[in-house]
């Protein structure tokens, strides 16, 4: 069917995206600027050792960070540069922010990718099964474990996994080893614990949502029709019911990608020492390296925006009834 309205919709959303981006930029900038801390703070002990006068050093550092200029000037330079696609220079790591992100995104990505895929696969399958077998023993077990899954604090889970499998049993390293090539079994192996850490919660969530979505649709009339057509049960469930249940699922999975992942992946990276965007931004925050903080915030925000948009578009194709204007 024709979806010309969809194009207008996308344009509208992109327009919003710009506004939102500006909002985020400004908020982040203000936060950085009103904050009392100075990039020179962390040098104090070093200065003391050298018997330096902190006032001079602080001045020098802040001058290089451009903090000596008036605040509005800083703000406009900063916006201007971003508009020109210049993400700025990261002082705490001495490389262009964009380069920094280019080198580190993959570490976050692989983690998120594997976790999401595995969580989605397992969660959906279990969910379907326990929905079809509602009130059966398996259903109760699945439900209970999904409860545990969503309730277990993932950072604690990570620590426990390290304690058990790395410290006690010594099956894994206690840290992520970047000298292992990305595309190798070794890397897959060392991703196991992080992926479990990040994936458990998501999987549990997906299980619950799939189950409920399936249950909602299993009771619908068209299921009876499908059966009356003589379709085998697998087709009835797998095609007719699931195809309808997928709609809410898409939203939830996408939403997870946007939000939960950025909390969870963040902690997971810190716990396992994975040099992904989470760890980078974490260190950047503590180093007052606002260029990086802003970039990461923006990226994740845009990711969320993009994902929402993608969801809406996917929806428009998955559910012929939907229509935005």
């Amino acid at each position, binding site marked *: 069917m024709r979806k010309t309205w969809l194009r207008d919709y996308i344009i509208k959303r992109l327009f919003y995206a710009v506004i939102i981006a500006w909002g985020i930029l400004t908020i982040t900038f203000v936060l950085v600027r009103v904050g*009392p*801390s100075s990039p*020179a*703070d*962390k*040098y*104090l*002990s*070093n*200065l*003391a*050792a*050298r*018997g*330096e*006068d*902190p*006032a*001079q*050093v602080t001045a*020098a*550092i802040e*001058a*290089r960070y451009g903090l000596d200029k008036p605040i509005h000037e800083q703000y406009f330079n900063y916006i201007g540069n971003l508009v020109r696609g210049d993400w700025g*220079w990261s*002082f*705490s*790591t*001495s*490389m*262009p922010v964009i380069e*920094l992100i280019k*080198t*580190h995104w993959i570490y976050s990505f692989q983690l998120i990718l594997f976790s999401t895929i595995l969580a989605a696969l397992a969660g959906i399958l279990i969910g379907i099964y326990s929905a079809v077998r509602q009130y059966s023993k398996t259903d109760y077990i699945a439900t209970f474990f999904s409860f545990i899954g969503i309730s277990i604090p993932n950072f604690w889970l990570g620590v426990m996994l390290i304690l058990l499998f*790395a*410290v006690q049993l*010594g099956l894994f*390293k*206690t*840290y992520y*080893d*970047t*000298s292992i090539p990305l595309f190798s079994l070794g890397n897959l192996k060392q991703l196991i614990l992080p992926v479990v850490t990040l994936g458990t919660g998501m999987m549990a969530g997906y299980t619950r949502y799939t189950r409920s979505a399936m249950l909602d649709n299993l009771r619908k009339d068209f299921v009876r029709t499908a059966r009356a057509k003589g379709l085998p049960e697998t087709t009835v469930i797998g095609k007719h019911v699931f195809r309808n249940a997928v709609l809410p699922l898409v939203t939830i999975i996408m939403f997870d990608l946007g939000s939960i992942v950025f909390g969870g992946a963040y902690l997971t990276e*810190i*716990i396992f*020492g994975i*040099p992904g965007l989470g*760890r*980078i931004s974490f*260190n950047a925050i503590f*180093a007052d390296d606002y260029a990086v903080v802003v970039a990461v915030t923006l990226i994740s925000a845009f990711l969320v925006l993009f994902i929402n948009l993608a969801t809406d578009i996917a929806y428009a194709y998955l559910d012929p009834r939907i229509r935005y204007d």
Partner: protein
Amino acid sequence: MKGRLKILLLLLASVCLLASACQPAKEVGGVFISGTSAGDAETLNWILAADSASFGYAGHTVDSLVTYDNEWRVQLRTAARDVEVSDDGLVYTVTIRDDLMWSDGSRVTAEDYVYTLESLMFSDWLNYPYKSDWQEEVGGEAVFVTPQVVDETTFTITRQTVYPEFIYTVRGLVPYPKYIAVKYEGDVEAFTQAPEFNNLTYTGNLGPYKFKEWLRNDKFVVERNPEYYLGKDTGAPYFGQYIVKLFGTSATAHAALEAGDITYTDIDPDKVSKFKKMEGINVYTVPTTGYLFLAYNLRDNGWEGLKIKEVRQALSLAISKGLIIEQVLYGFGEPAFSFIPRVSPCYVDEGIAKYGVEPLLDKEEAKGLLINAGYDKPLTLTLVTNAGNDERENIGYLVKEELGAIGIEVELKFVPWATLLRKYLMNKTPGTDEEPRYNNGAGAVSEEPWDLMVMGFSTNPLSPSGQDVFYSTKGGLNFFGYSNTQVDELFRRAKSEEALDEGARKELYAELSRVISEEQPVDFLAFQLANAAFQKKVKGIEPGINMGYNYHLWYFE
């Protein structure tokens, strides 16, 4: 048949013996991984760096003029001869080696050094953080010293005032390549982002290692530099690669060492016994320049009693340094009585008032002193330190106990580092709108009131006079507001011509530490000992305060 085999084996054995008899085989190769849970460096463009990690990273690829062994004996590096100081102590003549090369094959000349000083460090555009190292006060204003090229391999640095310890600054000098730097001269942004400097592509044969890779917040990798000027005869360095690996927590670093994933890391005091017991791991306990002290707030928003020397002495009398060392540092510390460590060439023992160890550890006497000073009623003091630093927090708890025993209630406050700096260290004169600094003069007070503060800094054993930032009236880091004319005077003299003579200088420092240890501006608690744990296979290590000085000669057996 069997017999032949025996003989063969015998032969082999003897060969081996012979081999081992003549000097140990140092074949090149292997990867040395040094694990740390400290933060990452900020830049390889070290001239812009203010943090020590950055100098550490760059230091693998470029040598300074000289370095020191564990007994502070000068070890020549890029310098051909030790820096010569004219008798009047004003002219420093530096002679560099003639076999130093930049990566493009061009010679490293005196010109490069002078350029580095004049056009980079001294320039207004670059914002070199440590300018003041190269400044002297003439007629009330800070002016730069004057470097001068003499010939290809010689240059001089001329001062107008005498400062004996200036030589240590000179000896630490590291050059920037003029032929590259000129491209960026005057443009700080371009200079900051210059690829040559940020990837250390210019270092030629100046360091034992060449830059390979730096994965931020994860690892810094350098590989063997076959041209290394010190390696011509020895074949040094012997490691194929040297990697600095960063860990989130020291616990993970420890685990990595235990698993054999890394070659070296520093061990937390409480874990030392565990590692000492391990096969295949050597733990060297070495002195450091780091010292912990308990600062007394002598400013107007601290307990007024602290302004009285006897009261300070009383407190120091009551706090056992032995206890702190044993409980907090697990025995890995030495009691401190001034900012000059035992390992410093300037250290003198006699005449120092050793508060906090027998016999100057006496709670009764402490009480007596307090009463004499007129403080007999119970009082409460606030002790503050930065949260998340276990050592300092623990010391806080112990101080609370110790002072409790002499009837002083201590309230502990642990605050984040930034908060500590802003609200407790920095101070300004009330009512004025001056910029808060660490020392805004006598009238200034910190935003939040405090009485005691546990702090840790490190001192420079070669030029202790640098510590005047803390203890002289105008010292830029004198946040606790200590002021004593005698101390100021001693610091001044330690920096003046009368200190040109080693002996005289040492005597001045002896005097200084006597006064300080008796004055107790702060309660010096302990100098920390570090525990460096290596895999046993690493050879050639000389444990000591500067154990890394010959690390290019270390090798795997």
